[in-house]
């Protein structure tokens, strides 16, 4: 590993994983943390709690489809939901840069409250710090969340089974391409919009319909679908085969990715989930997702295989196969 922190360490790809393994896990190691799930599952008395924390530093803080506030609430709700939990309480800590407009802060806080109310969670604790100009970028938000997990719900990243169908709950790369175009001031025509959304309702509906048959859930945020599936192939020790023709993506997002030399499989999503489900319930799960607000483009994108354990393979549009690897470094634009 390099001797200083670089932006690559925050990309959610290979460098982030190395950092977590070599620095954090080597010091903090314990059974719950080592599982590297979206949220930790801890038992308190007879209650099983899902517990998670996440910090938000997105730039720009306002973008089509949302802002740093609802992103921070939805992100934490989703981390809880990915263990099959019912999200209940959230704490909010803010680091504000001197000079931030109060009107901007009000807008952000209002959308946080709205996101919390939509998801039926309460913001019950908070903290505020202010730093001088240049010591932070406008606003950084940390959210921590708690939820309860019903008996019998066992959803985790090592629970993928050979034969499982892999579901993606909607089009990929919407958030990543929106932020990228905003940040770089790219005048690419396209009605891009972040997909930030809470996913706990999708999860609750899936579990209610097929108890015990939803094996793995994960939201493919930083590093995209590719990086998340790579993690799951490793933690479940299975092979994953994706079909390129089945991957849901908006035509304008696909076009922008091609123009910029980006692989949509590596771009972030903020309102999508990946699910490994038993093959017998795959079709009915898709039907359920299609009826819900954030699942209308859900699709079966591949399946879990015994071949190539720990690897993600893609069957391309022309029928050939190749491996999908984790994102290495920040995506760079192409030259010609």
């Amino acid at each position: 590993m390099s001797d200083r922190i670089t932006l690559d360490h925050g990309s959610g790809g290979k460098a982030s994983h190395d950092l977590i393994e070599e620095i954090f896990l080597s010091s903090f190691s314990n059974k719950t943390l080592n599982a590297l799930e979206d949220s930790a599952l801890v038992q308190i008395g007879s209650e099983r709690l899902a517990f998670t924390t996440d910090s938000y530093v997105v730039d720009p803080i306002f973008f089509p489809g949302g802002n740093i506030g609802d992103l921070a609430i939805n992100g934490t709700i989703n981390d809880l939901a990915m263990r099959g939990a019912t999200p209940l309480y959230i704490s909010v800590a803010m680091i504000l840069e001197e000079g931030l407009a109060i009107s901007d802060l009000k807008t952000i806080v209002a959308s946080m409250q709205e996101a919390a109310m939509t998801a039926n969670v309460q913001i019950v604790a908070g903290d505020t710090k202010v730093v001088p100009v240049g010591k932070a970028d406008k606003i950084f938000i940390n959210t921590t969340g708690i939820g309860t997990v019903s008996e019998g719900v066992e959803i985790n990243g090592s629970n993928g089974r050979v034969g499982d169908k892999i579901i993606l709950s909607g089009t990929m790369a919407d958030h990543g391409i929106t932020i990228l175009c905003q940040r770089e001031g790219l005048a690419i025509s396209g009605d891009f919009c972040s997909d930030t959304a809470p996913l706990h309702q999708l999860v609750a509906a899936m579990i209610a319909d097929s108890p015990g048959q939803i094996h793995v859930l994960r939201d493919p945020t930083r590093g995209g679908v590719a990086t998340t599936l790579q993690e799951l192939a490793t933690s479940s020790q299975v092979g994953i085969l994706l079909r390129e023709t089945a991957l849901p993506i908006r035509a304008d997002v696909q076009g922008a990715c091609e123009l910029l030399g980006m692989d949509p499989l590596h771009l972030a999503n903020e309102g999508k989930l990946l699910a490994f489900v038993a093959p017998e319930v795959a079709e009915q799960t898709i039907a359920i997702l299609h009826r819900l607000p954030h699942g209308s483009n859900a699709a079966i994108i591949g399946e879990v295989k015994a071949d190539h354990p720990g690897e993600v393979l893609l069957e391309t549009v022309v029928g050939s196969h190749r491996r999908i690897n984790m994102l290495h470094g920040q995506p760079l634009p192409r030259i010609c």
Partner: protein
Amino acid sequence: MKERQASLANHQLIPQLTAYLQQIDLPPLRFMEVCGTHTMAIARYGLRQLMPPAITLTSGPGCPVCVTATADIDTFIAASQRPKTIITTFGDLIKVRGSKSSLQEEMGRGGDIRIVYSVLDALDIARKNPNHEVIFLGVGFETTTPTVAAAVLTAAQNKINNFSVITSHKVMPPALEALFKDPAIKIDGLICPGHVSVIIGADAYLPLVKKYRIPCVIAGFEPLDIMQGVVLLAKQIVDKKSEVEIAYQRAVNRTGNNQARSIMATVFTEGAAVWRGFGEIAASGLHFREEYRHFDARHRFDLTITECKEPAGCRCGEVLKGIIPPPACKLFNKRCHPGHPIGPCMVSSEGACAAFHKYDTTSLHYPTPLSKENR
């Protein structure tokens, strides 16, 4: 969604082309795809799996960042260390290592280096920062150079005198000739670069084809375009022909884009240039003409590089000449990977090593479309 359906319909024609390639009798053949965008598309769609055993596809010198010599990278870095200077560049360049450092490392040390998507953005930065020198790093072939020339003309017209360019621009045909002349390199057919050919036209390859008798096909970048290119090359071999054919009619014609070439020729003139892996090739670089010398950063500032060191063990030069495939380099995917690139072919989004890394097919035991299970 319509475009996607059309493109999927196109893909359905591919089995017919692979079937054709399977049934003709071919000697062992090495076809070179010159352009980095082809290299990427071939890897992305796994097109090597569709080739009959006789045909090997090898990548060539068509990645502009990759062929940029270490001395040029060092010059870029020296420019970034000047006071009150803003460097503007396409993103791929920043991670390429020079003798001692990279532009990305210089950014960490406080160098003002900005990634732009067009040279016009660089002009804009120059307008907005009149107290700074704004230098654009000019890397690219005939495809990119006309826009850089146009930016120089605009700067001259509008007297944007704090704008300049370090030109490392190159032209393609002399490099192809250098490949054909080299007895160590066996090439039986060329998949010529689609974008470059839009500018220079198909006839630009005629003298080479006449002299070296190597079949050439200009191809587009969709899987079907590339497969069609391979089929046309194979047909020329079977028919014992060597011609320049266009499999990219929707963009390329015989004579190219005269206007773009004339803008390029107004600002730049051909001269010797050093290519990574090749050394100096006569008339392969584009230098400023005397009347636009003012915009030549090499002329305006003292950017002399005294000593330059190639990265140890890096075999990018051989990859760029099609002598070895990326996995034959001992550093590939070991010490050299996109998180820690040693040579430029691992950095660039057009680089062969990056393509092999990103679209990895080593030791896959899934049935290929040509294996028995799928026939």
